[in-house]
């Protein structure tokens, strides 16, 4: 097993056994900042070496994926899961959007398999973050007017994860491989170490969701385990249709199957306050995230290989 995942386990166990181990919020912020910039920079450097012209159709398809997923999840949760409208919409937005931490573990997984992936994937992370959140808000509010979209859109688009991902991407693109080279010791060489520390904290956070899990256990576990695989399969299929390589297909599957825990919770708390934030956060961090990093990613990799006839 990849040792970074063992750090998640360590954090989760420390949390469950109520250790006094805590990661200061400032450290969490630093680590996630470095991770986001690293992912962006890497993508930008790669993009700089390819022609971007051919990406437009792929961008359209990825955005379509982002808009579609919540429309599929919402009725399921609302009518099969019998959840209130606000909660169903919020959960749909979370699953439609993406988790950068899951993506980073996917990247680390591919690295340890020595499997390269298409350079535009970091761009897809950015593209997938927003649309589902907007659809989720519309679903919650029932498409009646009265939503002040201006400030909401600002909050969503200027959220720190998008700013850092997109900013890193553009800097990497402008600077190119040679320009970014002096930044490599911090952003590239430390990547796995930073990810390990970050996953330690994710484990602690996941463990702190245990109380919610006790109350809504069955529902959340069902949700958190049963949604990712079909979504990831759809993502893999889309990636294969677009002509991505095995690594790219795997990562698009990872993105589709991952569940937001930064952008979506922040936006839904403000835009759909009636939704219980503990429900979607616990499904995301307490169930789907560990499911994906332990079982999902290797499975999606299998699917990608199978699609490519390997």
């Amino acid at each position, binding site marked *: 097993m990849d040792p970074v995942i063992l750090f998640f386990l360590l954090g989760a166990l420390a949390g469950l056994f109520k250790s006094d181990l*805590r*990661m200061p*919020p400032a450290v*969490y*912020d630093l680590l996630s900042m470095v991770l986001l910039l690293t992912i962006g920079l890497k993508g930008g450097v790669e993009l700089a070496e390819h022609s971007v012209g051919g990406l437009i159709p792929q961008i359209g398809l990825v955005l379509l994926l982002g808009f579609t997923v919540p429309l599929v999840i919402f009725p399921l949760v609302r009518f099969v899961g019998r959840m209130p409208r606000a909660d169903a919409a919020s959960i749909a937005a979370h699953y439609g959007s993406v988790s950068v931490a899951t993506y980073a573990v996917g990247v680390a997984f591919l690295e340890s398999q020595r499997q390269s992936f298409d350079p535009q994937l970091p761009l897809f992370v950015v593209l997938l973050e927003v649309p589902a959140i907007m659809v989720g808000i519309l679903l919650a509010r029932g498409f009646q007017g009265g939503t002040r979209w201006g400030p909401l859109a600002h909050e969503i688009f200027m959220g720190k994860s998008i700013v850092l991902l997109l900013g890193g991407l553009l800097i990497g693109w402008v600077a190119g491989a040679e320009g970014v080279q002096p930044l490599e010791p911090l952003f590239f060489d430390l990547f796995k170490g930073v990810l390990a520390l970050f996953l330690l*904290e994710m484990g*602690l*956070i996941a463990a*702190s969701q245990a*109380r919610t899990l006790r109350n809504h256990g069955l529902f959340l576990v069902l949700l958190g385990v049963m949604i990712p695989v079909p979504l990831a399969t759809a993502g893999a299929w889309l990636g294969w249709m677009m002509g991505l390589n095995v690594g790219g297909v795997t990562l698009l599957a990872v993105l589709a199957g991952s569940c937001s825990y*930064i952008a979506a919770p*922040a936006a839904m*708390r*403000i835009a759909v*306050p*009636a939704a219980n934030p*503990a429900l979607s956060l616990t499904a995301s961090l307490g169930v789907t995230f560990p499911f994906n990093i332990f079982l999902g990613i290797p499975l999606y990799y299998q699917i990608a290989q199978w699609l490519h006839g390997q």
Partner: protein
Amino acid sequence: MDTTSRKLLTVVTEAALEARLCEALDDLGATGYTIVNARGRGSRGVRQADWSTSGNIRLEVICDEERAAEIATYLRDRYFDNFLMIIYISDVQVLREDKF
């Protein structure tokens, strides 16, 4: 030393609301406010400041009695249903009454 009576209104609520509350206070005519990061427990469970906006804030406004009532009413109507929030009010003597 000249002092004047004013009300000190304290709000403890979710950190995610900070930007909204500051805007609202500006609109409601508060002359200022002071915020500190907090954690705690209430009717809706424990709030730790472990990561991003998982913590609470403790916000204080000094103003006259009517404005305090106005602010409290506004917050109650807007946020009591869906957000963790408590509000309490006490009497204070302030220096430089024109500031509040």
